[in-house]
C-alpha cells in the first residue's frame, strides 16, 4: 500500500505531463477550429457577395431608383432610403417600448403576475413567424386604412424588435449588482430615478447590444413588408405611401428572369449587409465614447 502511494506521484509526474500537454493542444486546436467554423459562413457570404455584387456598385446604384425592364442602369437609391425610413419608424417604436417593458419586468413587477405574463408573451412573440407578423399588421393597419404604407411596415418591424429588446433589457438589469442599487437608494434617490439613472445606465452596454441585435434582425426582414410597405419603384418619403425596402427589392430582383436584375440583387445584398455592419459599428462607437478609464 505504502509503496503504491509513493510510486503513484512519480508516475503522474512523467506520463501525465505528456498527457496534459496533449490535452492542452487538443483543446486549443478544437477552440481555434470552432472559431474558424463560426466565422467561415460570414466570411464566405461576404466575399461571395463582393464577388457577385461589387461590380454592379456605382454611384447610380445609390442615387437612382430602378430602371424599367430593358433599360440599363438604375439603382436602389429609393430602396436604401426606404429601408432607412422603415427602420427609423421601427426603432422609434420598438426601442422605447421594449426597454420600458424590460424595466418593468426586471425592476417594478419582478415575480408578479403581470411581469410573468409580459415575459411569456415576449417569448412567444419572439417565435412568431415574420410572415404572420406581416399578415397581422395588414389586418390591423393596412385594411382599415385601405392602402399600403411605410408606417404599417415600420410598425410590423417595430413589433418584431420588442421581444428581443425586452428580454435582453431584463437580463442586463438583473445583472446589475444589489450593492449598486443599494448605493443609490442609500443616497436618498427616489426609486424611479435610481432605476433610470443608475441601474439602466450601468446596464446600458448590454441593453444597447440587445437593441442592435433586434435592429440587425429586422433590417433584413422581407416577409413582414410584403403586405405592409409593399415596395415602390419610385422615390417616396411619405409614411402614408407604399415604400421600397432593400430586402423587398432584393426579393423581387432575385426572383426575376433578368440577368441585369440578378446583378442588382447581389449588389443590394452586399449593401444591406454593409449597412447593418456600419450602423451597428456606429452605435457602438457613439455609445463607447463616453466610457471612462477603468470603468467596468
Amino acid at each position, binding site marked *: 500500500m505504502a509503496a503504491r502511494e509513493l510510486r503513484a506521484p512519480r508516475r503522474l509526474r512523467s506520463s501525465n505531463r505528456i498527457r496534459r500537454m496533449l490535452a492542452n493542444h487538443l483543446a486549443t486546436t478544437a477552440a481555434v477550429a470552432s472559431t474558424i467554423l463560426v466565422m467561415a459562413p460570414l466570411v464566405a457570404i461576404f466575399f461571395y457577395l463582393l464577388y457577385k455584387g461589387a461590380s454592379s456598385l456605382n454611384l447610380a446604384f445609390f442615387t437612382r431608383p430602378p430602371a424599367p425592364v430593358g433599360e440599363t442602369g438604375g439603382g436602389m437609391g429609393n430602396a436604401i432610403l426606404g429601408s432607412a425610413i422603415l427602420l427609423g419608424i421601427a426603432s422609434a417604436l420598438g426601442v422605447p417600448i421594449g426597454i420600458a417593458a424590460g424595466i418593468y419586468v426586471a425592476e417594478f413587477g419582478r415575480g408578479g403576475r403581470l411581469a410573468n405574463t409580459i415575459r411569456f408573451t415576449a417569448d412567444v412573440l419572439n417565435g412568431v413567424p415574420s410572415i404572420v407578423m406581416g399578415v397581422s399588421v395588414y389586418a390591423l393597419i393596412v385594411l382599415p386604412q385601405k392602402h399600403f404604407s411605410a408606417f404599417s411596415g415600420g410598425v410590423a418591424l417595430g413589433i418584431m424588435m420588442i421581444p428581443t429588446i425586452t428580454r435582453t433589457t431584463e437580463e442586463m438589469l438583473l445583472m446589475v449588482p444589489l*450593492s449598486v442599487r443599494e448605493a443609490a*437608494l442609500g443616497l*436618498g434617490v427616489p426609486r424611479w430615478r435610481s432605476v433610470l439613472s443608475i441601474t439602466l445606465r450601468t446596464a446600458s452596454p448590454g441593453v444597447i447590444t440587445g437593441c442592435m441585435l433586434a435592429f440587425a434582425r429586422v433590417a433584413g426582414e422581407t416577409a413582414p413588408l410584403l403586405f405592409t410597405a409593399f415596395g415602390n419603384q419610385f422615390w417616396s418619403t411619405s409614411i402614408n405611401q407604399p415604400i421600397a425596402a432593400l430586402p423587398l427589392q432584393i426579393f423581387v430582383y432575385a426572383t426575376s428572369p433578368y440577368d441585369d436584375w440578378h446583378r442588382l440583387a447581389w449588389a443590394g445584398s452586399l449593401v444591406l449587409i454593409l449597412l447593418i455592419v456600419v450602423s451597428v459599428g456606429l452605435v457602438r462607437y457613439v455609445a463607447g465614447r463616453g466610457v471612462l478609464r477603468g*470603468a467596468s
Partner: protein
Amino acid sequence: MGVGIEVSELNAWYGSNHTLQNINLRIPANHATALIGPSGCGKSTFVRCLNRMHETNPVGRVTGSVLIGQLDIYTQASPVEIRRRVGMVFQRPNPFPTMSIYDNVASGLRLNGYRNRVVLDEVVQRSLEQAALWEEVKDDLKKKSGASLSGGQQQRLCIARALAVDPEVMLMDEPASALDPVSTAKIEDLIFQLKSQYTIVIVTHNMQQAARVAENTGFFLNGRLVEFDATHKIFTNPRDKRTEDYITGRFG
C-alpha cells in the same frame, strides 16, 4: 451638525425570522457609536433600520419607533427623505461603475435635481477633502471611473459620496472589513475627524477598531442588545457575562 438617535421597542423580521427583538437604545449626537457582536446577531439589520433600508428587502418588516433628532422616521417622513439625512457606507465599496470620480460624488445631489455647476464643484471638492481623498484624485476627477480606484480609495469615495448630500447621521456597516490595514487606518482617522460634525454609527467585527474610534459601544447577540455603555467600560468592566465572554474571545 449631528443629531441624536432614540430607538424604542424596535423589532425587525426577515420573513418569519425575528432578527431584532425589542431594541431600546439612545445614540448621542456628534459621537461615534460602535456596534459589535458575532455574525448574524442583527447589528447590520439594526443600522439598516435606522435609514429604512431594511424595508427595501421584499421580506423585511419593522415595528417600533426610531427618532432621529425630533423626527420619527417611520411615521413622519418618507424613506427617501430619511436616507438623505442619514447617510450610509456599505461593507463593500460600491461606487457607481459607469460614473467618473466627480460624478460619483455629485450623484446624490444631481439625482435629486441640483444642477448648479459652481455649487456642485464646491461640494465635490469639500466632500473629497473631508474623505481625505482629494489630493489623490484631484487630477483625474472627470477622467477616471470610480471603479478604477483601489479598494481603500473606493471606500473613501463612497464616504465622500455620502457626505456630499450633507447628512446628519452616518451609518457605516463594517466599512473597513474588505480593506487592508493601511486603508483601514485611513478610514478610522476619518471617522475620528468626522464625528465632530456627524453622528456616526459603525458596525464592526473588529473589537480593537471599536475601541479606537467609538465613545460608546453596544453588544448585540442573537437579535438582542445585550449591553450598551461607554466603550472603555464595555471593554474593561462589562456588566453582562455574555459581553465579557465575547470580548475575551470565548465565543464568536
